[in-house]
């Protein structure tokens, strides 16, 4: 009898300790330090991400997130798989390429509803209203980049062969455009385009922008990604992350919060002038929240499917990749 009582006492204590440990561990999984790898350096394109960090949105959701800048040598999807990051930002072409090679990546929110990639041109020289207008032009392109895929798709749609237009390899040096060696130059509408437009205006030159989406090419840009393992094992963390991130983006892009957003951005981006930054933020708002009623993070499945189709048509993936399984919309 005594032995049985001791056994029951021990069992009760063990149960209690296990319960406490489980509770402790489940709390710590939310507060565990996690990395969020961005696609690019700190600039207006990531204002919502840094706003979430600086103004405590992640902490409020019980998360301990370190927002890390990206860059040309960074690949968030690889970092997810290597366990160096738990969340990241990747472009759709990166995601589709990764899926085609079996990477266990999932898309949980789409940041940009309109791809910021446009082509800038001088209005005194030309007007690009239809794809045929690209003929006989010298068009800047980053060979290997997603602008090449978009441009080649546009050319295919407009029946423009390589003999009809000259493709010019571009880098971060804009001199070929300044020197009029190139007619159309690829730019991100919410970053380089703002200061380049200003610089050109100072020189008395007006520019306009050619938007591939206006000609039927919906190529998805940056989205928030995580690993399949993360979403399976810690759905509550992923949910908390997406919810707090979208809330922060919403706040950062609210016109009333403009000063606060600029102030936040200035802590990280010290090289951009205030007027340029303000305009960059305005443009970013239009690209991320094109209509007031659109919820930030909304995933445009049709655009994803078209992007996958373009990638297959351009032989960037061995076959058409189904993106449906890899898209888990969490943004509310």
């Amino acid at each position, binding site marked *: 009898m005594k032995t049985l009582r001791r056994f029951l006492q021990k069992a009760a204590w063990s149960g209690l300790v296990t319960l406490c440990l489980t509770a402790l561990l489940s709390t710590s999984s939310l507060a565990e330090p996690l990395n969020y790898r961005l696609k690019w350096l700190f600039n207006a394109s990531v204002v919502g991400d840094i706003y979430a960090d600086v103004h405590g949105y992640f902490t409020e959701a019980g998360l301990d997130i370190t927002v890390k800048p990206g860059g040309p*040598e960074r690949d968030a999807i690889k970092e997810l798989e290597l366990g160096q990051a738990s969340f990241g930002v990747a472009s759709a072409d990166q995601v589709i390429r990764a899926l085609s090679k079996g*990477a266990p990546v999932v898309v949980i929110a789409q940041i940009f509803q309109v791809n910021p990639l446009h082509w800038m041109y001088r209005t005194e020289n030309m007007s690009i209203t239809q794809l045929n207008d690209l003929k006989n032009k010298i068009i800047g392109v980053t060979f*290997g980049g997603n602008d090449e895929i978009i441009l080649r798709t546009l050319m295919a749609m407009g029946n423009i062969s390589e003999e009809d237009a000259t493709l010019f*390899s571009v*880098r971060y*040096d804009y001199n070929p455009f300044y020197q009029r060696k190139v007619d159309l130059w690829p730019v991100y509408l919410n970053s380089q385009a703002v200061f380049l437009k200003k610089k050109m205006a100072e020189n008395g030159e007006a520019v306009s922008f050619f938007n591939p989406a206006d000609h039927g090419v919906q190529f998805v840009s940056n989205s928030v990604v995580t690993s399949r393992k993360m979403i399976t094992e810690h759905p509550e963390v992923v949910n908390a992350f997406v919810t707090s991130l979208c809330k922060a983006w919403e706040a950062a892009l609210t016109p009333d919060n403009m000063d606060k957003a600029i102030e936040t951005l200035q802590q990280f981006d010290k090289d951009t002038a205030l007027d340029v930054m303000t305009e960059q933020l305005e443009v970013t708002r239009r690209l991320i929240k094109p209509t007031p009623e659109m919820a930030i993070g909304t995933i445009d499945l049709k655009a994803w499917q078209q992007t996958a189709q373009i990638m297959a048509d351009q032989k960037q993936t061995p076959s058409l990749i189904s993106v449906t399984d890899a898209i888990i919309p969490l943004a509310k």
Partner: protein
Amino acid sequence: MLLRRIFQFFIIYILGISLLLGLKYVLNLSNYVIPAPIELFTTARDEFSRYFYEALDTLSVAVIGQVISVCLALFVGIVGRQTTWFGSFVKVAAYNFQAYPIVALAPIIFILLGDGFISRLLIAAMICYFPLLLSIIGIMSEPIKDIEHFYQITGRIRWQLEVKIRAFENLSKLTTVIAGSATLAMAGTIVAEFVAANDGIGYSIRIALYQSNLAKILVALFFIGISLSLYQGLLEWLGASIKKVWATL
């Protein structure tokens, strides 16, 4: 010598690839992070001819760049060996010039000289030049007292003779330094192609990086390694031949 170099390169390359594949299978990584052997094979097959010619293109620029940097280093080394004010000025200028990282200078070179052959050549020569200069200054500043003393006593010492004596006595060091600098010339050319050119294997690596295609990068590395091994082997053979000829003089 040449065959040994190639054989050694193959060992290193295979070890490197095996390590990567080992990591891939141990950590269960997808083909996006580390490509599968079959993907490496198909990429090598598909890109062989293109990468082969691009590696040759890069190597040709590296060779010319190295010749330029050897000539420049010899010139500066000979002038800088002097203990005069001008000699020390040349040394200081050469050292300061090297203090600027090439990636910071590349955009200026790119603006001034465009994205063609000259930019690649200049950047390759600049990267290769400084280590060569250090060795050459070291060699040329060290008097061979036993021999030079005789010419000094007899009043027949001239700068050309001094340079010849020091070069001859340090021939082994010089050939080793020159053969070793081939690696730097190749690396310099690849950096140049990466930042400021539209040709060569470095440019292809840049495109492959944009596409996160490690298989292409690994194939490109193979071509870089094999062409460098061949070139270095050839330089070592040339050095050994020159030594033999000089020994008979």
